């Protein structure tokens, strides 16, 4: 075990990658619940509001103590969440306006405190400014231990109370009716989200942390249709984003990690929007094309049927131009498709020289079974 830690300690790069992967996975998993419970804006408020807490934690501890900073950030986040939920109750302000005011107010206080801390000799070296946009390369072994602890706690609790989290996220009323303490589970999920945000700040930064929470979840939802796979995939997207950010951060110390991580995560969303098998743009486009083609074919079959009936001849040969006129559009592509499917065939009808079409046996059977089928 000590050997394992010395390897990690000796290899800064490994520490950084492990930390960023942990943060990404944690944010992805809790982000899935945040998105499903419509708490994206609360996540953004918590992360921005953590900045003054980071500074206060540093000032109290006198050094960059991970636990002191964590506690400060959590305290400030809790205060902000309480303020955001209290303001609409005591005033006429709407919840989103209250949230925005709390977010920007706390963040402004944080930036002021940050400049105070930066003015001190000890503060300038502590690199607290990294908390704005994140710096994975600054992850120390002590940070990694805290991150691992928090990740184990969060993921363990969610695994243990999986079905309670699921039912509360889907239908809090049903949860309550079943005797599940929905309020406690909701509060627990929100608290875990706050914890995940706070430990992720150092890597991603307060400004963009919400993106690492939301983007992997949104991307994952596009690929899968059940909660378990969505949470796992979201965690994987988050971890991959974190690792990518850490690698760039290790190679270029002057590039902030947060934006890189978020770019990768947003890239995953974009790619998923286009490529996802059922919900993606390409899939939707293909589906609508297939629907339209099927509709065209059904319409052509119906016209052929009507003409055959009108002439009392099941093998009636219809001229292509007649079909176009009946449908008000070019019938040729649909006819070709029907021919390939063996439902219609092109035939000559001398003395006329234009192409004519008649129904095949299979086509007649299809019509007998109902044109749409």
């Amino acid at each position, binding site marked *: 075990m000590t050997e394992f830690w010395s390897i990690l300690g000796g290899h800064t790069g490994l520490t950084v990658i492990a930390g960023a992967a942990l943060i990404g996975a944690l944010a992805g998993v809790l982000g899935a619940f945040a998105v*499903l419970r419509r708490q994206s804006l609360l996540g953004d408020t918590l992360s921005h509001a953590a900045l003054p807490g980071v500074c206060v934690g540093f000032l109290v501890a006198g050094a960059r103590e991970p636990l002191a900073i964590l506690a400060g950030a959590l305290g400030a986040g809790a205060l902000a969440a309480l303020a955001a939920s209290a303001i609409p109750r005591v005033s006429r302000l709407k919840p989103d306006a209250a949230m925005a005011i709390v977010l920007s107010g706390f963040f402004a206080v944080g930036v002021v405190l940050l400049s105070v801390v930066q003015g001190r000799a000890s503060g300038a070296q502590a690199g607290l400014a990294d908390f704005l946009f994140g710096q994975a390369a600054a992850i120390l072994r002590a940070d990694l231990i805290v991150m691992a602890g928090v990740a184990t706690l969060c993921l363990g609790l969610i695994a*243990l*109370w*999986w*079905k*309670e989290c*699921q*039912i509360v*996220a*889907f*239908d809090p*009323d*049903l*949860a*309550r*009716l*079943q*005797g*599940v303490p929905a309020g406690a589970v909701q509060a627990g999920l929100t608290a875990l989200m706050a914890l995940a945000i706070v430990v992720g700040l150092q890597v991603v930064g307060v400004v963009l942390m919400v993106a690492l929470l939301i983007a992997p979840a949104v991307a994952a*939802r596009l690929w*899968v*249709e*059940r*909660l378990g*796979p*969505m949470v796992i995939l979201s965690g994987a997207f988050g971890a991959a984003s974190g690792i990518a950010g850490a690698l760039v951060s290790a190679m270029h110390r002057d590039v902030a990690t947060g934006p890189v991580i978020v770019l990768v995560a947003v890239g995953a969303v974009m790619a998923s929007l286009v490529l996802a098998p059922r919900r993606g743009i390409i899939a939707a486009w293909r589906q609508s094309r297939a629907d339209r083609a099927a509709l065209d074919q059904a319409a052509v079959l119906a016209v052929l049927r009507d003409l055959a009936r009108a002439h009392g001849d099941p093998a009636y040969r219809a001229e292509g131009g007649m079909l176009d006129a009946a449908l008000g559009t070019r019938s040729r592509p649909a006819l070709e498709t029907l021919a390939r499917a063996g439902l219609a065939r092109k035939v000559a009808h001398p003395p006329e020289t234009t192409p004519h079409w008649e129904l095949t046996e299979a086509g007649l059977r299809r019509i007998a079974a109902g044109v749409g089928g």
Partner: protein
Amino acid sequence: MPDTPLHEPHIACHIEDLTVSYRDRPVLWDIDLDVPPGVMAAIVGPNGAGKSTLLKAALGLVRPVAGHVRFFGLPYGQARRRVAYVPQRASVDWDFPATARDVVLMGLYGRLGWLRRPGRAERARADAALEAVGMADFARRQIGELSGGQQQRVFIARALVQEADLILLDEPMAGVDALTERAIVAILKGLRDQGRTIVVVHHDLQTVRAYFDWLVLLNVRVIAQGPVAQVYTGDNLRATYGGQAALIGPEGPAAP
């Protein structure tokens, strides 16, 4: 929880003096209501009459300012296994990543208790409930891909799997086609014939006599309650619908 003495145990749902208000406006006023076991009851009234609120308040999802509710003689907390609730379709997040079977399984979470996961036995029960409402082929579909009537049937399956003696449904026939409506009514009547009690918030006066055997007319207060044949009168309907009574003929609306 200490056992409370039974109060009106022979009544499936007993409501006394129930009053609910939003801000300063009462939405339900002094409701006294008894639904006997084994009936299929409709709660009917105009928009804003408090029909949905009545179900929610009875179940404790909305906090009443006065009154009490007993199911088979017990407060909801001690009778929860005997009571199931099917919410309005519009209140559900249909985009949630869950299959029809996942949703039905959630009906079993209460009795599974903490930490226990649904296993093979639970999945079999969920599939049987889906089968009973004709949705077995859709067990693996994401719920948003189902039609309105299919979604409704999945939620009825969730109530079935709970093996409740009393099922409360909020507008189960809203937004489904006539064929589906008849299928849902047939399922509910089947449940009633097994001895269960069905209470439905219903919006269509025309079908009340065909579907139900018990009727509650509600407009903030209870206007009338009892067997459909006694309650479904022109006077009662006019008292319930007030200004909208022009829609109703002198002998009540035409029989369906």
